[in-house]
């Protein structure tokens, strides 16, 4: 099983790995710019996490993805148990219970849950040979995804929970959605949405949605982040204010500068040119991943590549739209760029899975 012969190593997509590392280093640069005046050396920590995540990626490469898929059931049970434990035992961090302490390291099981979900989907649809999705499969996947989803919502970590929509939705799309099913899903999500608004969503989350519609309505509250972020991006202009010279970030007007809003710092300090470059890099990276779908040797591989890529694409799009005020602020990190070990690790592992599938396209079944 763990046999990395020369042929397999030759098949590793080094371009993709280079793009990931490049993107991560850009992230370190702007994490430094936006937090160098704070104690904590976030850029150094991020570098360490990049190292750890890269090692994890290599480990993922070493094992045939089929093994992970086969293991997904156990992983699923484990992660659901972890999420449940998190809810009960975890230390409170920033008002949420999403962190679990592993000695010196802190982990967010919800980030790992995304990976598990990718594998579960691949497992569920590996032998699926119909052109369109059946009701039984739909309900089955909704149930399987629903349990960790609700546990994550309960933390409450709406942002991570939202990424499940990408994974599950991606799986549905691949399996084939009839028009009738699309309408049903839309209706169901509407009902769930309205119900969720009134029952599940906390006030701070509702505020985030309302502040999207009218950010100036509560400039010191939820709207504040969006306003400051938009000011940062807009004031960057074409070429930006220069590295470490963004007034919005350096003077701390920008919230969550090194985490969720790191792209605002890029927008402010490097302007539209920087924004264009980073988005182009992303596009290259994600396009390369999307197009790897044709390299997958089996259905499970297609699902892994597609859902993992869709997950990153979803986070990327939601993040860059949220920080400029086009979507509500739902704590979704920008993959590779935002500060945060768990998020980084999850992104690297997701890429690792894609690379894994891609490099084993000629492997004998």
């Amino acid at each position, binding site marked *: 099983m763990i046999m990395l012969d020369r042929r397999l190593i030759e098949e590793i997509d080094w371009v993709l790995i280079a793009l990931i590392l490049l993107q991560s280093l850009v992230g370190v640069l702007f994490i430094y710019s936006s937090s160098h005046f704070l104690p904590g050396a976030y850029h150094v920590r991020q570098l360490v996490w990049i190292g750890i995540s890269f090692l994890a990626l290599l480990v993922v490469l070493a094992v045939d993805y089929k093994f992970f898929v086969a293991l997904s059931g156990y992983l699923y049970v484990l992660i659901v148990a972890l999420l449940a434990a998190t809810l009960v035992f975890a230390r409170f961090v920033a008002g949420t219970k999403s962190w679990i302490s592993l000695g010196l390291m802190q982990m967010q099981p919800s980030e790992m849950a995304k990976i598990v979900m990718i594998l579960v989907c691949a497992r569920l649809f590996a032998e699926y040979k119909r052109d369109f999705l059946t009701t039984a499969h739909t309900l089955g996947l909704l149930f399987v995804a629903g349990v960790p989803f609700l546990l994550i919502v309960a933390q409450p970590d709406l942002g991570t929970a939202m990424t499940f929509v990408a994974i599950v939705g991606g799986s549905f799309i691949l399996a084939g959605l009839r028009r009738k099913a699309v309408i049903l899903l839309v209706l169901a999500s509407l009902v769930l949405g309205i119900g969720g608004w009134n029952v599940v969503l906390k006030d701070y989350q509702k505020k985030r949605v309302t502040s999207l519609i009218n950010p100036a309505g509560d400039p010191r509250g939820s709207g504040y982040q969006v306003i400051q972020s938009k000011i940062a991006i807009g004031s960057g202009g074409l070429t930006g204010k220069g590295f470490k010279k963004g007034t919005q970030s350096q003077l701390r007007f920008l919230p969550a500068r090194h985490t969720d809003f790191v792209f605002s710092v890029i927008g402010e300090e490097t302007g539209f040119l920087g924004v264009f470059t980073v988005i182009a890099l992303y596009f290259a990276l994600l396009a390369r991943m*999307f197009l790897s779908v044709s390299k997958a040797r089996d259905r499970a591989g297609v699902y892994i590549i597609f859902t993992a890529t869709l997950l990153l694409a979803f986070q990327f*799009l939601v993040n860059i739209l949220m920080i400029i005020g086009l979507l509500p602020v739902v704590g979704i990190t920008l993959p590779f760029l935002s500060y945060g070990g768990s998020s980084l690790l999850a992104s690297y592992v997701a890429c690792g899975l894609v690379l894994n599938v891609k490099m084993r396209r000629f492997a004998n079944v």
Partner: protein
Amino acid sequence: MPEDRIYEDLTIVRRRANAVFWIFAVLAFLALSYYWKVQILEHRKYLDLAEANRTRSRVLAAPRGLILDRDKTILADNTAAFKVSLVRESVKDEAASYAAISRLLGIDEPTLRDRVALHKDLQPFEPIVIADGLTSKDVAPIESRRRELPELLVESEPQRIYRSGTLAAHILGYLQEQTAEELRARPERPTRPGELVGKSGIERVYDDVLRGDDGLAIEVVDSLGRVQNENARQFPVQGDDVILTIDRELQAEAERALEGREGVIVALDPKTGEVLALASSPTYDPNRFITRFTPKEWTDLISDPASPLENRAIRGLYAPGSIFKLVMSVAGLTFGYVNPATTVYCSGATQIYGAIRHCWYEPGHGAMDLSDAIKNSCNIYFYSLGRRMGINQIALAASRLGLGRKTGIDLVGEKEGLVPSSEWKQAALKEPWFPGETISVAIGQGQLQVTPAQIALLTALVAARGVPVRPRLVSNVPAAVDPAPPADSLFKESTFEEIIAGMWRSVNDGGTGAGARVDGFDVCGKTGSTQTMSRESAERLARAGRVIKTHSWFSGFAPRVGPRIVVTVLVEFGGGGGATAAPVAGRLFALWKERMKPR
């Protein structure tokens, strides 16, 4: 199942994956377009917002100009103090914030909230002063909690201090914060938050002179309002000084003389109109307005029946009593009802219009000419004169001599008083004038009302033999009001000489004003005792168990030739003018005689 396939055909799923990729590509492009819109098309707007975010202009308070006495001794000075302001924008948790501020500054929460509410019209980023006049010790606990309380701003600011406490309080006036209504009513007088502005006295009248030009510092701040850097600074310019005509020593002596009494002393130079002393008792400490009263102190102050805040010199209305005999004399001579030699016989009482009228001296003064009548303040002489002259002639002379209108002194809130006439009575009371009322007016009673300042000015006019002056408190700033009125051609200089002769005898020849005599200073004066008293005052005195006495007047000048000073004294409920007011005036004449010697 017909859809089942034997072999793995991934074409469909790959096609679907590609479709999703293209949707993603389009969305990514749209996102990029939106960034183009915000960063390129709306760049200017967001750049301005970022600039406004990071800079804050802070007003640097300009010290007020000093107020000096005529010898340039500082009466109103400036000292350094700290003030604490609240920036509402930076308040995270209102309840916790107010609780902490209340604890650290020792202000109770409702008061704090009231102060903030007073300025609720200000922008949330503008600081609201919640405490000022603090020492470095007071602000130390706040400075040490700067991180926990970013909403608090501690600044050092010049603060008014009246070095001599209550001295000349009614002249200097006091400073107070503008009320919300005043802020709205006087948009042309922009104030920085918490600025104290002149509310009374010189501080008010010369507010525009005294207040300087505030400076401005453009500071770079972080999101917590902490100053990171300063971009530009415009230094504040101190206001101009105001030099008073007041003589500190004379003022102090006047205030000492009135201590424990309710009354007024006005001293002025009859040639120039410069006010040398102006004391109103009881008084107050203007410093207390700066350090702020406790609510109880303030209530006590404004509800004090003796009204210490009122400047009685210009706002107290009194019957002039026998002082008015000066006006009667001028009128009698001018309109030809008497000449200096005309005599009236005083038997102590006389019957006029069917009523018995008494002189204050019951045995009677005997035959009196004008000079005797002034010297002895004989009522009978002036009853007779008043009856013959009639109210309208009296009113005409009184008006021309400055009664019934403001003196034009540079203080606010001056009252006009009242000179009754038949026209006035018809208009005001819808009643005809009764001749009997004229008799009361002739000795300064009845509806006549004057302020001590008017009497001082009237005396100055007599002393200057009819050359009028406008009273002035400030020597270095041109008067905002029109200069001295032209001399009234109605009165002849010789008229005043005759009256001055009587006034001289009143003080120096065993008359009623003998108490004001100063050797070698030729004091001329007239006493007065008024029976008029308001009902409230009478009740208040009765409650206090005091004997109800008359108000005590003296007004005079010295020396007789080339007069240098006019002194008017009014002591409320002081008894006879000769007994109480004249000796007080004498103290001031004596002091001024010394002060005039070359130093």
